[in-house]
C-alpha cells in the first residue's frame, strides 16, 4: 500500500517469463514465412534472411482439405458445446435441488466416474463394438459431452447463487420443473454457462485424441488431427503439397514452411479471440478452484 509502483526487478522477471511464453509462437510464424532455400541453407530462425509467402499460396491452392477439416472441427465444437451445456446444467440443476430424493445417489454416481475409469481398451470397445460409431462425427462428440467435474461446478453455482425461495415461488405460481429450469435457472446462470462453455469449446476445438482413436476416413479429419498427420507423417505432408504443385510454378516445394503455415492457420483464430475470452477464462479458473 505504501508504494504504488511495481518493483522493477519483478517487471523484468515477468517480462522475461512472458517472452518465453510468446517466442515459440514467433518461431513457428517465422518458419512459415521464410524462403525455403534460405531455411535449407541456414535452418529455422527467429529472423530469416529471406521471406516468402509461397507456403500460404500452396495452402490456398489446395484449400479444400484444410477448409473441410476446419468445418469438421467447427461443427463438432458447436454441437458438442451446445449439447454439453444443456446436459451438464440439467443434471446439475436436479442435483442442486435439496428436496430431490435421488440427490445423494446421483452425487455418488458422478463421484465414481471421477475416481475410476475402465481404461482405454474397454472404452474403445464400447464405441466401436457396442455403439458402432467409429468413423462418424458422433464418436467425436459424445465423449466430451459430460464431465463429473463440470457438473459439480455448475451444481455449486446453482446452490450458491439461486435462492431456493425463487424456485419455490415460481412453482407456487404454477411453473413446472422444466419451466423453472428454462426460464429462471438458465437466464440466471450466464456466468457459469460462459465459463464452462468456454472450457468445453477449447477442449473440443483442441481435441485430436478421439480422432486418432476412432477416425480413419480422411473426410472426417478434424483440424487438429489433420495437423497431427502432417507433423508425424512426411508423406502426408507431401501429398498436400503435391496436389497444389501442378498448378503452381515453384520449383522447390516449400515443405517445411507449408507445415508451419498449417500450424499458423490453426493457431490463428484462437489467438484472435483469446483477448476477448481471457476474462472468462481467468474467472473460470477461479470457479474451478472452489471446491463443490
Amino acid at each position: 500500500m505504501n508504494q504504488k509502483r511495481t518493483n522493477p526487478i519483478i517487471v523484468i522477471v515477468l517480462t522475461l517469463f512472458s517472452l518465453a511464453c510468446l517466442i515459440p509462437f514467433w518461431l513457428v510464424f517465422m518458419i512459415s514465412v521464410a524462403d525455403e532455400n534460405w531455411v535449407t541453407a541456414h535452418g529455422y530462425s527467429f529472423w530469416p534472411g529471406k521471406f516468402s509467402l509461397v507456403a500460404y499460396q500452396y495452402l490456398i491452392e489446395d484449400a479444400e482439405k484444410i477448409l473441410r477439416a476446419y468445418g469438421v472441427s467447427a461443427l463438432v465444437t458447436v454441437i458438442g458445446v451446445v449439447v454439453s451445456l444443456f446436459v451438464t446444467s440439467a443434471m446439475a440443476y436436479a442435483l442442486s435441488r435439496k428436496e430431490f430424493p435421488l440427490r445423494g445417489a446421483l452425487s455418488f454416481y458422478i463421484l465414481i466416474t471421477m475416481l475410476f475409469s475402465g481404461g482405454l481398451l474397454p472404452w474403445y470397445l464400447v464405441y466401436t463394438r457396442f455403439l458402432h460409431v467409429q468413423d462418424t462425427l458422433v464418436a467425436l462428440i459424445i465423449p466430451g459431452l459430460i464431465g463429473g467435474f463440470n457438473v459439480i461446478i455448475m451444481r455449486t453455482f446453482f446452490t450458491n447463487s439461486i435462492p431456493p425461495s425463487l424456485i419455490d415461488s415460481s412453482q407456487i405460481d404454477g411453473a413446472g420443473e422444466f419451466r423453472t429450469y428454462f426460464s429462471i435457472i438458465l437466464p440466471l446462470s450466464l456466468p457459469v454457462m460462459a465459463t464452462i462453455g468456454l472450457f468445453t469449446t477449447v477442449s473440443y476445438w483442441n481435441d485430436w485424441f478421439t480422432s486418432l482413436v476412432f477416425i480413419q476416413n480422411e473426410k472426417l479429419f478434424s483440424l487438429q488431427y489433420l495437423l497431427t498427420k502432417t507433423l508425424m507423417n512426411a508423406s502426408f505432408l507431401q501429398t498436400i503439397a503435391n496436389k497444389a504443385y501442378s498448378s503452381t510454378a515453384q520449383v522447390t516445394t516449400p515443405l517445411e514452411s507449408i507445415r508451419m503455415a498449417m500450424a499458423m492457420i490453426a493457431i490463428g483464430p484462437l489467438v484472435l479471440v483469446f483477448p476477448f475470452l481471457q476474462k472468462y477464462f481467468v474467472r473460470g479458473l477461479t470457479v474451478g478452484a472452489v471446491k463443490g
Partner: protein
Amino acid sequence: MASEKAFITQPGISQPNTKWRHLWKYRALIVLAMPGILLMLINNYLPMFGIFLAFKDLNYTDGIWDSKWIGLDNFKFLFASNDAWLIIKNTLLYNISFLLINTILAVMLALLLNEVKNKFASKFFQSTVILPNFISMVIVGYIVYGFLNPELGFANKFILEPFGIDPKNWYAEAQHWPYILTIVNTWKNVGYAAVVYLAAIVGIDSEYYEAAVIDGASRWKQMTKITIPLIAPIIIIMTLLAIGRIFNADFGLFYQATMASGMIKETTEVIDTYVYSALMVTGDTGLASSAGLLQSVVGFTLVVTVNLIVRKFSRENALF
C-alpha cells in the same frame, strides 16, 4: 370387485407405493438428469465393466463374451517383458518432477503477478503466461519440432553450432528427453496453475495486510507470513488432484512432443502411450487391458488413500 382391490392394496403395498409416488413427484427432475446419467453410463460405466477383459484372451472372431478366460496371464506377460517396470518408473518420475517444479514455479509466479500494481500490465502478464495452456498439444508438437528438427532446428543451428557443438539427433537420443519434456510441460501448464493461485491470493481479506503494515511487516514478511499460509489449502487441493493422477501421464505431451518417435522410448514411454500403442499399433489387447487396469486400480487407490490422509489432518481440505 372394486372394494376388494382397495382392500388388497391398502395395507401391504402402501409402503413402497408412497415411495414411488414420492419419486413420481420429482419425475421432471429425473427426466432432466437422464441424458447426463445415460452419457455417463456409456462413457464411464460401460468401460468400467469392461475391466474383466484384462483376464481374457480377447479375440474378435470369438467375440468379446466368448473369448477365453486366462486368469492373470496378461499381467504375467506384461511384467515378464520388463516393459511394466520401465513405464511405471517413467510415469512416476515424470509426474513427480512435474508436480514439484510446477507447484513451486506457479506459486512464485502468482506471488510476482500479485505484486504488479499497474492494472494493464497485470492483465497483459496474466494473458501471456496462460496462452500456452490454450493451444493444443498438436501445436506444441510443431513448436518442439521447430526447435529440435535435427537438420534445421533452432537448437542445433543457432545454439549448438555457434558454440562448436555437434548437432544432435534429438528424436533419436533418449537421454535428452527428461529435460525436454519437463521444460515443455512447465511451459504449457505453469501459467494456468499460477492464475489459479493468483485468484486465491486476490481473495485474501485485505485487513490482514493492513494490520501487518501497521505492525511494520515488510512485503517479504507479508508474503511468507500471510499470503503463503492462506493459499496453502488451495495448494494442497491442487497437489491432491495431481497425486491422484500420478499414474496417468499426459498422453498428448508424450505422444505429440516426441512425435511418437520409437527410438527414444526408453525415456519417453509412459503407461498411457504404452496402452495406446499396444491397442492401436501392435493390436495387443492383452497388454493394453492389463496395463490399463493396473493404471486405473493404482490411480483409484491413490486418490482414496491420499484423501483419507488429508481428511485425518483437515476435513476441510479433503476432496470428498
